[in-house]
């Protein structure tokens, strides 16, 4: 099992996680994915990738370094993002009841191994 697959696997085992994927944040295209039925990885990569890129520009405007973790919360669930090296970003789609704290730790660990 590759490092990438192993990282996705650990994230998707967290309760409430509907899927995880690695995307290129500049292109918004999927690099690898492990998703439950009904989760559109291509849309997640494009939409979340675009949002992360904009947040990075906002952080830069504020004189801050790029984000290491982002939690976009909707009233029906969330998107979690952990940018890694080489413009890759690890993304997860989670339900309302998900253990976001555990998912965050797994994602930060997995994102650190992205290259």
């Amino acid at each position, binding site marked *: 099992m590759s490092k990438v697959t192993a990282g996705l696997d650990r994230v998707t085992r967290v309760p409430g996680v509907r899927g995880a994927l690695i995307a290129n944040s*500049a*292109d*918004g*295209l999927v690099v690898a994915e492990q998703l439950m039925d009904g989760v559109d990885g*291509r849309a997640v990569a*494009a*939409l979340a990738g675009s949002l992360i*890129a904009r947040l990075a520009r906002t952080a830069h405007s504020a004189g801050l370094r790029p984000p290491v973790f982002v939690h976009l919360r909707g009233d029906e669930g969330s998107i979690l993002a952990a940018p890694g090296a080489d413009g890759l970003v690890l993304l997860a789609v989670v339900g309302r009841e998900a253990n976001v704290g555990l998912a965050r730790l797994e994602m930060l660990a997995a994102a650190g191994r992205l290259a």
Partner: protein
Amino acid sequence: MRALEPWVEAPLQSFLAESSARLTLLMTSSGQVVAQHGFGRSLDIMTAAALGAGIVASTEELARLMGGSRFEALMHQGSRQSCMLSAFSTPRGRWIALVVFGPETSVGIVRLFFDAMVQQLATAAPREPVRPTPLLAEDFEHELDASLKALLGR
């Protein structure tokens, strides 16, 4: 944004708003322009349409020779702007889109909302059959001129 047929407007407008594309040209596979956004001159439209239709015809022939299916899209990525050329089916026949976009958006966003536009066009297209028209009608030049004026809003 200008379209020769009103039913194209809403899907194209939605695509433009969501994708942040700088230039968009929709044309038939023979290079007849259906709608445009961002072009300022008729010469640019005619040239882009002819080149786009030619490139799609070439790559589809290449795909046929290699025994594969048609290419979904051609993407040329540049540092200042990128270009997507894609052929797609509509109830009015096979159309081609040429989309130019900059770093303010991404390939993923453009493709995501482009696919949504293709679906919306399929839904919005009037259902009456298309009457074949002669390739070079007697008033071809007049029609071309009128179409370009409509597309440029003049």
